[in-house]
């Protein structure tokens, strides 16, 4: 399987470039700097959310976090409601949102490790609980305001017309690299994902690693929500839903195996870029939504066939 040896990140980036160029050919103005920045900004939202998902998937066992969508919405609502348009209050609300994300993520982790609930179902169930929490907090009515500092960070441009959120995303990329490659936690995470038994027999406390991973996933999803708020400036109840499964796709396209133990956040970033470009290109082509969806799905399948296959039973 020579194709498997090719670096998935390279494939993803090449694909991204191809998509960008094709877009430029088909739709003049698509390949412009401004449009490029816009796409990067959109990709950043998915990318930030997928950071947590990356950690969860690296932990192996085909674990995914299905509560990220709800967490995004919750994060956004907390800042919207409690920040209430004041910058300093918004900062406190941000801390609150991240803390709540951490806590709920930890609950996910505990349910999975201590109670042995399958990750898919636990995170799914918690998503329902989070949605309930959202309704309780907002009482059905969504009041509040996005803090101006947030909006200008996200939508405004800081240097060379690069939106602030993109810089934030790049910063996150650096932080994720540090965490995965330069902390004991990151190393242990890869070990757990590669082989739980070996990890345990080498002194790694596997349940702790998993709980921390889910906690981080929750926190990063909340961060994603806050950032998304800066872009949309409005909150609605299923703000985060369109990001849940695509965050998984972005991670897988980026070369991280669902089986765990292999991957990087840079891959996820490339994956998020590819997915966003694909969506934008399909929109630019002015295809009817039905065709857009079908091409999107078919492209994902194609990517899977390149490096998504599993071992045969016959050894």
């Amino acid at each position: 399987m020579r194709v498997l040896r090719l670096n998935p990140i390279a494939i993803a980036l090449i694909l991204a470039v191809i998509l960008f160029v094709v877009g430029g050919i088909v739709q003049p103005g698509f390949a412009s700097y401004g449009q490029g920045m816009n796409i990067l900004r959109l990709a950043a939202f998915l990318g930030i959310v997928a950071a947590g998902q990356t950690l969860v998937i690296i932990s192996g066992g085909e674990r995914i976090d299905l509560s990220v969508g709800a967490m995004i919405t919750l994060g956004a609502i907390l800042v919207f409601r409690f920040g209430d348009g004041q910058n300093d209050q918004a900062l406190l609300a941000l801390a609150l949102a991240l803390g709540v994300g951490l806590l709920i993520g930890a609950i996910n982790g505990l349910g999975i490790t201590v109670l042995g609930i399958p990750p898919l179902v636990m995170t799914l169930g918690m998503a329902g609980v989070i949605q309930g929490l959202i309704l309780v907090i907002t009482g059905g009515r969504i009041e509040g305001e996005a803090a101006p500092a947030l909006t200008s960070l996200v939508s405004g441009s800081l240097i060379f017309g690069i939106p602030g959120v993109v810089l934030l995303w790049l910063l996150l990329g650096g932080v994720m690299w540090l965490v995965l490659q330069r902390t004991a936690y990151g190393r242990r995470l890869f070990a757990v994902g590669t082989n739980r038994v070996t990890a345990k027999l080498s002194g790694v406390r596997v349940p702790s690693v998993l709980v921390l991973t889910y906690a981080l996933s929750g926190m990063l999803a909340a961060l994603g929500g806050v950032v998304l708020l800066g872009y949309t400036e409005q909150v609605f109840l299923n703000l985060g839903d369109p990001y849940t499964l695509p965050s998984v796709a972005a991670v897988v396209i980026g070369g991280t195996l669902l089986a765990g133990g292999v991957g990087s956040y840079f891959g996820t970033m490339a994956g998020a870029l590819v997915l966003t470009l694909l969506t934008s290109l399909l929109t630019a082509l002015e295809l009817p939504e039905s065709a857009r969806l079908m091409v999107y799905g078919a492209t994902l399948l194609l990517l899977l066939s390149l490096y998504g296959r599993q071992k045969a039973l016959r050894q």
Partner: protein
Amino acid sequence: MADVSLSAQHLVKRYGGVVALADSSLDVQSGEVVALIGANGSGKSTLGKIITGAVVPDGGRLLLDGEQARFSSPQAARRMGISAVYQELSLVADMTVAENVWLANEPLALGRVRRKERKERTARLLSLFEDALGPSVGPDALVSALSPSDRQIVEILKALSREPRVMILDEATASLGGRQVERLFELVGEWKARGMALIFISHRMEEIFQIADRATVLRSGRTVGAADLKETSEQELVGLMIEGGIAEQRHIAHPGETAGEKTVLLETEDLRSSVLNGVTLQLREGEILGLGGLQGQGQSNLLLTLFGAAPHSGTIRLAGEQVRLSHPRQAMKQGLAFVPGDRGGEGLLPIRSILENLLLPSWSRYGAFLNMRRARNDSEAVSQSLRLKMGSLDHPVNSLSGGNAQKVVLGKWLMRGPKVLLLDDPTKGVDVGAKGEFYKILSDLRERGVAILLHSSDDEELVDLCDRVLVMRDGVVSRQLSGGNLNKSVLVSASVGAASSSSDSAPSGGAA
């Protein structure tokens, strides 16, 4: 049953650099039981797997009824009338006995499974072992609820249900109790009379003499003898099993004297776990204590338990103080180290780099933001001291040969300067040259006062390396060999339970 004859001729099988079978042959006819015997690692299982179609040989041929046979799968062999009794491999735990026995062979009517008939047939099969099964064993019992010995019987019945002409029992009696073995042998007698040909792979001398007509002896992948059991003695067979063998370079670390003066670093009292039935031992600094005996008698579990990786009761003392080891991390911090038996599955992260593997237990020593330079230097130092042959520290571990991969497993512990080293069959699948280097490393560690507890499936290795050897049987230490008794023939005899004429030192408590 029509007459059948099976002849394996000069079979060869290699796994990477290791030769499992060099030139092995075996013949069996209708109405006879041929025992296939050999020491650990002689290739018996591989030969069995080739005959049953689970493994394809690299050389030689198989003749069934005089015609060449090539089996592409176990199914193919089964269709030709060759059935094997696996060690629980083919059972699905959450299904019933009846469902398992008839899996992929169900009695059908109009496409639907005839459950009543399946249940009756299973009951009939089970009745063959009537008074030898546990109380709750019936066609509708879940396999997960059965004891290992009952499960083994289900495997036997499953093989039998295919009405084979040739049946291979590979260590089938290993998990069976006395009455069950008796009953099995009665049945074997009946099957023989009906014309079945049987191959009985086993270690247990008393059983072999009871049941088999002839014996074929394998040693280091070669057939070294065939004998009629009516005209052979146990001693002769054991002699065939062990005599000669490959001369290997061994750095023998061997005073062999009692090390009574040295401090006891690790001791256990009545250690019990799911497999252990009360193990008491002492391990002294600067000694290599061996764990021997047949496979699966609790050796691996003992090592796991000592490392805090298995639930247990009983006492463990380190340097005189009792410790409670409930996780490997605690054991590690107390200066213990463990090299597991399944290198790829438990000791290494195959797809990750050598560097990562070496550092896995020790990351917390390099700061909150890992000081990679120091980590790299330390790894370089360890790899050099172990003379690790590798491309670079960043290559994945699965690019290394078996011997070098094992050095990585050892290396990750040596970086921490352990006081007690637990090793589970560390040189299995390692080539001769690397083995020699490994022995030197162990002997150096011994000189430095490290206490080493070593389990090996290679009897010669145990004899040459260890100061003392504890022979394990059924989860306890059954004998302790040292000094003049520490030689291969005594060890092999002790392992197979044969009576020994020479006296030996009493085992240190807890013996069966």
